């Protein structure tokens, strides 16, 4: 035993692993287990009735569909934001950089109220959109606006450090080999950024699915149209239907987990394909 001992630079593998597991169990797994446990008080038929009610199903579609769309929008514009912050110098750059984190710091309800005030029919922006036949507040579009707002920092902050590390010499090299601007972006820059971009996408998505505060104000919560799944859970809770609330929560948990697992798998695949993971 002693002969096979290996020396590590930093000791304490067992201690840290033990700590990690205990901590995760306490903080993450225990509450989640309670959700499943509480749900188990329902019979299978009751469970199915709760989670397949038309209003609830409509809310799944809205929550997951709009969250994915919001994350995708953030992936595109977050990348552009990160690009201009890393590559260009402009007056007020530090200010803009600080502004990006603001959706993190702002209480989400405040964001919701502000967005509603802007986009309501008589709001600053809403009054001009309404004659064009575009209604934002109290429609799924409003939910999208709120989710784009709260998800903004994730992609910017995950992509930014990778972009900073990316040597402009690579672009010079590609250009000297005859590649055009789009080709350089597509074949040289994007593959390097893709794993970070996917991480940012996954984070923005996860945040959007769980978001409650900013959405309920602007969504208007019209049944079958603009109700998000977290709202359905709250509604059940307000009716003291704890088992029903946790049943919907279980569906959300499982769906979110599967989607995140998929994104992680995608990320591992790109990393392997590009030789970072060998």
């Amino acid at each position, binding site marked *: 035993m002693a002969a096979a001992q290996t020396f590590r630079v930093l000791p304490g593998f067992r201690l840290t692993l033990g700590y990690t597991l205990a901590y995760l169990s306490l903080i993450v797994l225990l509450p989640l287990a309670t959700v499943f446990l509480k749900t188990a008080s329902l019979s299978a038929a009751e469970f199915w009735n709760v989670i397949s009610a038309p209003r609830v199903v409509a809310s799944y579609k809205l929550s997951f569909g709009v969250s994915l769309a919001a994350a995708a929008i953030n992936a595109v514009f977050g990348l552009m934001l990160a690009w201009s912050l890393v590559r260009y110098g402009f007056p007020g750059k530090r200010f803009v950089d600080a502004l990006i984190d603001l959706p993190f710091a702002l209480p989400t309800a405040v964001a919701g109220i502000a967005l509603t005030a802007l986009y309501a029919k008589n709001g600053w922006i809403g009054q001009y959109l309404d004659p064009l036949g575009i209604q934002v507040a109290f429609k799924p579009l409003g939910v999208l606006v709120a989710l784009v707002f709260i998800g903004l920092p994730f992609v910017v902050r995950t992509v930014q450090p990778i972009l900073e590390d990316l040597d402009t010499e*690579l672009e010079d090299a590609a250009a*000297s080999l005859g590649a*055009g601007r789009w*080709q350089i972006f597509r*074949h040289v820059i994007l593959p390097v950024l893709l794993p970070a971009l996917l991480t940012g996408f996954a984070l923005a998505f996860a945040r959007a699915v769980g978001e409650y505060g900013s959405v309920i104000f602007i969504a208007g919560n019209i049944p079958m149209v603009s109700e998000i799944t977290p709202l359905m859970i709250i509604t059940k809770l307000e009716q003291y239907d704890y088992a029903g609330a946790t049943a919907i929560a279980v569906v959300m948990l499982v769906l979110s987990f599967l989607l995140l697992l998929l994104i992680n798998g995608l990320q591992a695949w790109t990393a392997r394909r*590009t030789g970072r993971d060998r």
Partner: protein
Amino acid sequence: MSIQVRNIRKTFGDFIALDDVSLDFPAGELVALLGPSGCGKTTLLRIIAGLEQADAGRVMLDGADASGTHVRERQVGFVFQHYALFRHMTVFDNVAFGMRMKPRGQRPSEKETRTKVEELLTLVQLEWLADRFPAQLSGGQRQRIALARALAVEPRVLLLDEPFGALDAKVRKELRRWLRKLHDELHITSIFVTHDQEEALEVADRVVLMDRGHVEQIGTPEEVYRQPATPFVYGFLGSVNFFHGRVDGGNLRVGEDLLPHAPHELDAGSEVIAFARPHELDLVPDTHTDTGVAARVMRIHAFGVSVRVELEGLNGLSGMSSGQHFEVELTQQRVAELALAEGQNVRLLPSRLKVFQRNDAIGASA
């Protein structure tokens, strides 16, 4: 293909990187741009490539003005000091990159690409690394792959920016011999930038010496080493001893000492700086004359074929300040004759002295 640059000027803010530089690079030659860091050599190379735009002046490729064309239209192969390989692509994909980026009409088929890449990898002797990623290669291997990648687009000229700068001494020597051999096979007009004089003299057909945005001298390695045109070139190529003095008849007066000196055209009394290589100096015992510069032997390095002697000048030495440093190369026999010992006082006598007027001697003090 020949390259001409005409009256190139480039500034970065207040800093003048290139000041009215004009140069000719004949077709098929391997030319070294040599100079200390900050002399503008890399900037000049990047301007020739089109990676940087000159403030004024023209770049002519094969006689045609290329100043207005983009780097991707110039068909130049560029090799970077830190390789700039695409780390998310295999060695094969890196080398194939240039061919795959061609417009659809000119793009070779995947089969032609494969043949060409294999050919190039064989040329750089790394065909067995095709499926590896850059991170799995050594520095020398990476630079050879970078060269193969640049050659894949059949460039009209090859530009190398400190290609061996990031490599250790042994690999560097190996690679520069290999580069010379490769150039002899391909005969593609090539320019490489370096701050290593040994590298430039050993590899290049022709050396361009640059300092502070100016061209100091152009010539074959032998010319620039044997007949340095300016004090800067004298000081930059090889180790050298210098004396500040004044012309005094047939002699140079250095402080209180006199140095005999061959006929020259400089006016009596003009301030000059004189250079002598270590092997162009002899030591004589100090016999209380004023012929030769007085110095004290500090260290004697007796290993090797010749003996290197380090000395400290006694000329104008006052109080605590240490004298000027001299280095002399003598034969073993001469050292024995003189019975040289550390701490001994001697006089330095040059067999050959190169004298420059003082006002243009600014660059040589380094």
